[in-house]
């Protein structure tokens, strides 16, 4: 469960969000510039809100009143950004295991089996296709045994055909691994197919939230 209660200013843009995210998959939905990515950055610790608090599974990650600001590397979030950002100087195996923690539950075998990246492990990242890069980035995030998976428009940069092929992998991650997912998209179909709950954002504020069937009418 993530409780977000933040205000963040960026020039003239103001993001103000008060939400409790407790379902398996929450989709943050809205046009670009609505503040979706900013929320993920705030949860990951890559951007500091002006004030407020972020609490994940009872652990305070940020609280401006108490001056708590846990650094990103201690937050245990898995972040797959729009631009994927696989480390170009490491092969697939070293990318995937970069965040592996000793004694974690998720094994490399389990993750590579779900995402079907086992055959790619010894390749350089420059040799991967778009869809393979997506899956490797997902595997890398999962291997850090995150408390939450933050997915920032993971399908925005791929064509319709590829999207159709990657979505099942995302659904397997959702169904077979007990990792809550926060999923950012501006695609209505993706949101409807994937979400347990949808939070609709516009210009920095939540304008609707609830069941995808109702909210996305």
């Amino acid at each position, binding site marked *: 469960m993530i409780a977000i209660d933040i205000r963040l200013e960026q020039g003239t843009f103001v993001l103000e969000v008060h939400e409790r995210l407790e379902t398996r998959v929450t989709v943050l939905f809205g046009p670009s510039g609505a503040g979706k990515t900013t929320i993920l950055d705030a949860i*990951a*610790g*890559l951007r500091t809100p002006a004030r407020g608090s972020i609490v994940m599974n009872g652990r305070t990650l940020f609280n401006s009143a108490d001056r708590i600001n846990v*650094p*990103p*590397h*201690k*937050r*245990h*979030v*898995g*972040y797959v*950004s729009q*631009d994927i*950002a696989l*480390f*170009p*100087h490491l092969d697939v195996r070293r990318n995937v295991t*970069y*965040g592996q*923690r000793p004694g974690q539950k998720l094994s490399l075998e389990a993750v590579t089996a779900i995402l079907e990246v086992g055959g790619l492990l010894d390749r350089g990242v420059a040799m991967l296709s778009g869809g393979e890069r997506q899956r490797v980035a997902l595997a*890398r*995030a999962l291997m*850090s045994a995150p408390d939450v998976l933050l997915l920032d428009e993971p399908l925005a940069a791929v064509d319709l055909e590829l999207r159709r092929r990657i979505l099942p992998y995302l659904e397997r991650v959702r169904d077979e691994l007990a990792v809550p997912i926060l999923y950012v998209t501006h695609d209505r179909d993706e949101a409807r197919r994937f979400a347990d709950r949808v939070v609709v954002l516009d210009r920095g504020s939540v304008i609707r939230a609830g069941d995808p069937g109702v909210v996305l009418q």
Partner: protein
Amino acid sequence: MDTWQITRFTLMTAVAATALMIPPGLALAWLLARRRFRGRVLLETFVSLPLVMPPVATGLILLLLFSPRGPIGGVLTRMGIEVVFTWRAVVLAMTVMGLPLFVRTVRAGFEQVDRRYEAIAGTLGASPLRVFFSITLPLALPALAAGAVLGFARAIGEFGATIMIAGSIPGVTRTLPVAIYTFTEIGRDRDAAVLLAVSAGIAFIALWLSNYLTSRAGLRP
């Protein structure tokens, strides 16, 4: 004249100076590339100062600081370490004169590294120190190599600061450029010409090596 001794001495002191540039150089380059703090511009100015000041003036500053009665030299003398007019002074002059080139090159390299990689590495649980050594530094490696070659080349050619703080003592502090100057001054033109050829050879090999390394890394500058 002992051409071999002068050449070996110059190469060894330049290698030592380059090695000494790397730790503080990396720290300074990273600070300037990645941190915003008070006094940043001042620090940047200080680091680059030897690049624009007359080397002889830099040498004089070093001489004042490191002479046995100077603030740093006094402490070192009491510890039994002599600097001025020894090989240590040669290394010191080379390090101070090469450092700005190293820092500027590596800093530009750090700035080229996409911060997104560092951010993602952080979310994967890597501490800032691990991010630096596993992401930032490897991705900036060509710049590090280029900076080291530049710093080394500057060290090999160092003259002004060296002559001030180390002098031209045969077999003790005499480097290639200092020897060329001294021999020309006293009319030993043949010896100067031999050392000139050696200098040109070293410069050629260093440049060829740096071009070879950068092209092998697939990163043409």
